[in-house]
Every structure is written in structure tokens, then in C-alpha cells.
């Protein structure tokens, strides 16, 4: 058993705060989010500067995706209680975004003539953009804080 897992077990036994989002496997998640923050933001920057008029909607969405990845990376890397909440919001938006843009780009290709990081569920990035928010939500659930006292009359 690795030390971080033992910490997690102890936390569960004592009912104290859960594991931090930036520890253990969370470090890998932050690394992947960081790469996507870099990739999506840089891509959006190039698109917006060099050919914004070609597909304004797609490129603005690229920029939004980049921003969401940046927020998720920073909040997961900080791993505080407050940052967990922001991370949850960012990752939920990310999931909605990749599913919506992915579906629209399949149904109505004219609406998304230019590739974004979320086009066809992130096919250009090995579908990692589709898997990443699911892993993010699973990780937030896995590391959720435990209430110090169990609430009376529940479960």
C-alpha cells in the first residue's frame, strides 16, 4: 500500500477530511489537465488571432474550452476545499461542453466547419477530452471530504 492510500484509509476511518485532489493519482490528472489547458489555450489563441472571421463560434468555443481547462488544472492542483467547488463547476461545464460540441459537430458539420478541441468528442486528441471530465468527476467523488459527524437520521 502506498502512503497516500494509507492516508486516505485513515481519513475514512477517523472521519476527517478526504484525500486532497492534488495527491496520488490526482497528480497525473492535474498533469493531463495542464497539457490540455496549454493545448486548447494555445490553439484558441492562434485561431482567434490569425483567422477569427472564418468561424467565430468555433474559435470562441475553443477559447472557452481553454479557460475551463486552466481553471480545472489550477483548482485541482490547489486541492483546497474552496478550490474543489470551483473544480466541480469547471469540470461539469467541461463535460456539458464536450458532449454538446461533440454531438453538434457530428449532426451539423456546417455549424462547426473548423476543428476545436471538443469537435467529434475530441477525436483529434484521442477522445481524451471526453474521458477527462468523467475521470475528473470520479476523482472529486473519490476524494470527497467526509463529514466530521454522521448526520442523524440518514442512511
Amino acid at each position: 500500500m502506498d502512503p497516500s492510500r494509507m492516508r486516505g484509509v485513515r481519513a475514512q476511518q477517523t472521519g476527517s477530511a478526504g484525500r486532497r485532489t492534488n495527491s496520488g493519482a490526482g497528480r497525473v490528472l492535474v498533469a493531463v489537465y495542464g497539457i490540455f489547458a496549454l493545448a486548447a489555450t494555445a490553439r484558441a489563441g492562434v485561431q482567434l488571432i490569425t483567422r477569427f472571421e472564418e468561424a467565430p463560434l468555433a474559435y470562441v468555443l475553443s477559447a472557452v474550452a481553454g479557460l475551463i481547462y486552466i481553471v480545472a488544472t489550477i483548482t485541482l492542483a490547489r486541492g483546497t476545499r474552496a478550490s474543489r467547488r470551483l473544480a466541480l463547476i469547471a469540470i461539469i461545464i467541461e463535460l456539458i461542453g464536450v458532449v454538446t460540441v461533440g454531438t453538434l459537430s457530428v449532426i451539423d458539420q456546417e455549424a462547426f466547419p473548423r476543428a476545436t478541441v471538443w469537435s467529434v468528442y475530441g477525436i483529434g486528441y484521442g477522445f481524451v477530452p471526453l474521458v477527462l471530465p468523467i475521470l475528473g468527476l470520479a476523482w472529486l467523488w473519490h476524494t470527497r471530504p467526509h463529514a466530521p459527524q454522521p448526520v442523524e437520521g440518514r442512511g
Partner: protein
Amino acid sequence: MIDALAYTVVALAGVGVLWGIVTAIANKPPGKAQLLYAAGLEAVTVVQSILAAVKIIGGFRPVELATTIGYLIGIAILIPIAWLWANVERNRFSGIVLAVAALAVLAMTLRLLVLWTPAG
């Protein structure tokens, strides 16, 4: 970009990915040799980015100039950031962090090979 150098980066990065996975499976943090290897990969990657920059300054114009420059900078900064991030908390996941960065360098270098065609 020099094709032979790019394929060298791809091969070195591929080994780096596997090495990271192996140490993670063995439940060990990256050892000294692995960290030196990552530094070596970084050195070759930086040399390639510098050579490509020299060619661009010398007048070579790839089709997607801005994207190409972004990739050349990107591949040069990934390994150092991953190195620092992997060393803050040293355990099996440090190897995976290095593997993820090496995989990104590998994928981006392959993409650069495609991008590196003259405009016009």
C-alpha cells in the same frame, strides 16, 4: 526540423513513456537514471526546437506558422514542468506524470513533422 532528429525524439519519448509506466507498475518513484533520461530527452527536444527556430528565422515558412511556433515552444517546456511536478510528491504516480509528458512530446513531434511543409 530535421526528420532524423524528430524521429529520435519520438523514439526517446516512446521509451520514456514505457519507463514511466514500468516504474509505476513496480510501485517505485522514478530513479536517478530515469530522471537523467528525461533530462536527456529534454536536451534533444530543445536542440530540435532551436534548429527549427533557426530555419524559420532563416526564411522557412511552414503552412501553419503560428501553430508550428506554438508546438516548438510547447514541446520544449513540457518535460521541465512535468519533472518539477513529478518530484514534489515522489511515488509511483511520478513515473506516470513523466510518461504523460513524454507522450505529449511524442504526439506533438509527430504533428510537427506534418506541419513542417513549406507554405505556397
